[in-house]
């Protein structure tokens, strides 16, 4: 009977020995055996590969592998030709004419032409949900000839050109558009093609370089792999073990990555963290209807302290919801609300709340520490902060149902018009109570009719000043995007107003 015990011991030891002998494969970059290879650690999954389902920011980058867009936004934020070689508006800015390339084919062999553009754009208009607003103003698509289309708009859309470099501009093969397979296997004209045999949905998505791609300078790799790693420590671990070349981290892991010798892109901010005060009309919380109360909240927070404490200094305090690259940014506005609890108390008293007010904001998982700090700051001004736990999955539905008076969230900063549409118009999700103001509406209308440039910027700045002065928001700070990468394998530059660098921004290290 002794052998049973020995067998048991052997059974435990043997696999361990086997495993130890397999050690060699760990840490290897897959690029070794297949030429130049790039592995990116993403924080979220691409749930649908259909071109109309593309997100912005993180969600757009994987789409850049199989798809090209009509326009391309370069690393300086300028729009460059891509599938469209030239574009121009008419006088009224309701018709955009695009000249198209004639030498591009999709990976299924179908030629790229005006009909393809029409099919894509119309499909987007009908079926897109996540970024439907990008073509909200599109009325119809006119095919002039095989290389020319005209986009007819129902009203001017200052963000249209930008959007044509985003989800709306992704071009799928017309054979694939609208099919069920498009959700799982993308068919585009892009530099890479999905390698289905190696792909595990929701875990790793593998693309291989397409032969005879029309823009070799945009095709830096033979193989691109996206690893879905939802946990930030998993992303850091993957980076440290050499299993990914670049990934997005956060303030808590910044030092670890830097200390381990990884490069981190500097001056990369795309989101602002703060409160969106939905209830400006006081339906849920009458106190919020008074602008002085909202301003008091802005005075009561100590933004610099929060940046230090919550982002470990990796951020910049701000009072404006618009970003520095949006054109709406006004430097002086950042001084509008210095940390001044006394002033806050005064304002509250003026508004008729000498004993203070209560503010209820949503609290996402893991944000309790942040809100504890803010609560402490607000209490010094007599403002009681109540946290209402929410789940990300439920949040939007509840917002739409007007359950919350204020939202605590990270919102991305883009071109002025985009954020106006996102935050300020009457029927956007982030304005569930439909707050309006004639002055603001007038400014918005004016902005709509302008093309980008100094005039548009001036109007955007006025909009910015309006919302800051009227304290529609309580912006706290812009947080750094912590993009960490292995400088010995990869070169990468930031992409303005995009949460993760575009695929085109990556190149093998020299």
């Amino acid at each position, binding site marked *: 009977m002794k052998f049973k015990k020995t067998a048991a011991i052997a059974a435990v030891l043997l696999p361990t020995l086997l495993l130890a002998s397999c050690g060699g494969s760990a840490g290897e970059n897959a690029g070794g055996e297949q030429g130049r290879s790039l592995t990116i650690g993403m924080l979220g999954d691409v749930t649908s590969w259909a071109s109309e389902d593309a997100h912005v920011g993180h969600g757009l980058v994987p789409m850049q592998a199989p798809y090209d867009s009509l326009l391309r936004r370069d690393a300086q934020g300028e729009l460059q030709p891509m599938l469209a070689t030239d574009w121009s508006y008419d006088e009224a800015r309701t018709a955009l004419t695009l000249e198209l390339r004639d030498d591009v084919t999709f990976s299924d062999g179908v030629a790229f032409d005006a009909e393809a553009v029409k099919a894509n754009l119309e499909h987007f208009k009908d079926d897109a949900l996540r970024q439907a607003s990008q073509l909200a103003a599109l009325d119809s698509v006119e095919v002039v000839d095989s290389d020319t289309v005209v986009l007819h708009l129902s009203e001017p859309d200052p963000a249209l050109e930008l959007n044509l470099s985003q989800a709306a501009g992704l071009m799928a093969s017309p054979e694939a558009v609208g099919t069920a397979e498009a959700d799982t296997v993308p068919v585009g004209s892009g530099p890479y093609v999905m390698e289905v045999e190696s792909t595990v949905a929701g875990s790793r998505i593998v693309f291989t370089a397409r032969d005879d791609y029309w823009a070799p300078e945009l095709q830096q790799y033979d193989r691109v792999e996206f690893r879905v790693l939802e946990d930030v*420590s998993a992303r*850091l671990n993957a980076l440290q073990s050499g299993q990914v070349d670049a990934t997005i981290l956060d303030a*808590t*892991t910044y030092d670890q990555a830097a200390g381990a010798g990884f490069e981190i892109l500097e001056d990369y901010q795309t989101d602002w963290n703060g409160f969106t005060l939905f209830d400006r009309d006081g339906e849920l919380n009458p106190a919020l209807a008074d602008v002085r109360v909202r301003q008091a909240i802005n005075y009561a927070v100590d933004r610099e*302290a929060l940046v230090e*404490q919550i982002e470990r200094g990796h951020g910049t305090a701000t009072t404006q919801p618009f970003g520095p690259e949006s054109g709406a940014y006004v430097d002086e506005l950042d001084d509008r609300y210095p940390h001044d609890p006394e002033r806050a108390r005064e304002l509250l008293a003026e508004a008729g709340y000498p004993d203070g007010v209560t503010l209820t904001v949503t609290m996402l998982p893991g944000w309790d520490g942040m809100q504890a*700090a803010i609560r*402490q700051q607000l209490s010094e001004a007599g403002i009681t902060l109540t946290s209402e736990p929410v*789940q990300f999955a439920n949040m939007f539905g509840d917002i739409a149902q007007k359950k919350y008076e204020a939202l605590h969230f990270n919102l991305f900063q883009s071109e002025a018009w985009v954020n106006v549409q996102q935050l300020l118009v009457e029927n956007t999700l982030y304005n569930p109570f439909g707050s309006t103001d004639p002055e603001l509406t007038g400014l918005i209308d004016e902005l709509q009719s302008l093309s980008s440039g100094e005039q548009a910027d001036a109007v955007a700045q006025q909009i910015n000043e309006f919302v800051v002065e009227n304290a529609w928001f309580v912006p706290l700070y812009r947080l750094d995007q912590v993009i960490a990468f292995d400088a010995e394998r990869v070169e990468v530059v930031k992409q303005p107003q995009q949460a993760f660098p575009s695929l085109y921004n990556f190149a093998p290290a020299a």
Partner: protein
Amino acid sequence: MSNTELVALASMRTRTSPLRRLLTNPLGVVSVTVLGVIVLVAVFAPVIAPFGPNFAEVGNAFAGPGDGHLLGTDSAGRDVWSRLVSSTQLTLLSALLCAGVAIAIGLPTGLIAGYYGGLFDGIGNWFAGLIMSLPGIIVLLTARAAFGPSVWITMIVFGILISPSYFRLTRTAVQSARNELYVDAARVAGLSDVRIIARHILSVVRAPIILQTAIICAVAIGIQNGMEFLGIGDPLTATWGAMINDGFRNIYTAPQLVFWPALTIGLTTGSLVLLGNAIRDALEGGSTVAAPAKRGRRTAASASVPVSSAHLLEVRGLETGYPRVDGSTNVVVKGVSFAVDRGEVLGIVGESGSGKTQTAFSILGLLPQSARIVGGEIVFDGRRITSGDAGVDQGALAALRGRRIAYIPQEPMSNLDPAFTIGAQLTRPMVTGLRISRAEAQRRALSLLARVGIPDPARTMRAYPHEISGGMAQRVLIAGAVSCDPDLIIADEPTTALDVTVQAEVLELLREMQRELGMAVVVVSHNFGLIADLADRVVVMREGEIVEEGAVRDVLRHPQHPYSQQLLASTVAGRKPLTPLLTETEGSAR
């Protein structure tokens, strides 16, 4: 529990309660102390925490210990010590709530299902299966979505989800206990079911339940941790899980934030488990007071020292005892001496507690682990089998047992392994002991079974112990004892547990086999009739000492010692000595 265990326990129990035994177990003491401290911390939390659990000092995050913060501050500038202390109460209470719900559902249903069986058992089993098959994480998530993120609700739901484990454990334990003889006895005695369950069954169920509770509390805390990690915990209340999660999120910046709650969790869950073990040991008496004699190990000295002896078995001044908690020894065999020659039958008579069984087991070397042979020696066939270190020479005895010294136990059913066939249990020791092939052992076993009067040996060989009657089982045990042709048999009350009519048959069997095989027998009994029939000489024991010995006719006819006279006088009145108390009946052997 057998007689010997009762004796062993009695020597401990006379002075100690389970509580005392718990407290002498070092692990028990440590765990009780640790848990006590933690409970005190929970109760006095408001007093010993300088800050509120959610009070955040902005700008003072990740501070080290000092400056009013005993353990530093966390990522929000909250005092770690205050949070730790405040969350103790909540975490403990919620874990207890979970276990409480689970026990409240699982224990009663398990008791009823195990005891009564039938429809309730079927239904209960099905529900247990249903609840166990529910995907726990999904239920927790949807409950959270429906009822809110409160940790109390989560613990109640989890308690419901985990109650089948209690149901199953209870049911299994009750089922095995239900078939024990003492339950039948209780039933026959007319005890109500409730009483039986409450007093007898419950005590069997205690051990696994207590252990499981400790484990469940630990699991409940683990569930809280897990849900915090997944972001679906209760963000507004400070629990250890919340602290660990905060520490985990910042593990690269301040690893010590994980350390403190982990230490607390570890101490608590560890103490719970150890306490569970210790309680179980205290209640069941399974743990030992002193270090046990190691079985099967040869002692360095006296590798069966040859000693001159004229007899087959000689017991010289044997003293056997059990250590008490206070260090003294309860001596149950006080200087017993006797001898047995080849082919001779010696009877050892006495009341319960006279030490006769202890003597028998001392010879066999099968005393409980806590027993000590504190004096005298035992010599078998010219070799000393007691060793120098308060025990027996297990190495020597192991070679003798089953081959040259055999044992016939008292209670037939509990002395057979319920998981093996009669045939397997019979033949295997023969194969190793006699070094014969299995086929040969099978043949011999069959003939042995026939010899002991079993009507269908082949069928019995294939049967399991629970499929045969008590009388047949005893015959099987006798067959097993003689199977290797031993020189000496120690029979401990061989017929006491049998039906009256079967007793006579087995007695006759014993007598025949003894004559046929010429074995020496030491038969321990309180039954004079048996002794009269079987023994050549008899020894009367009282409270660990021999009070009289001599030829059986002499002692039984003319007892000299007052105690022997007393004993004999208390036999059934109206019978003359030397007549068998039992009459043979006709009919088939049972």
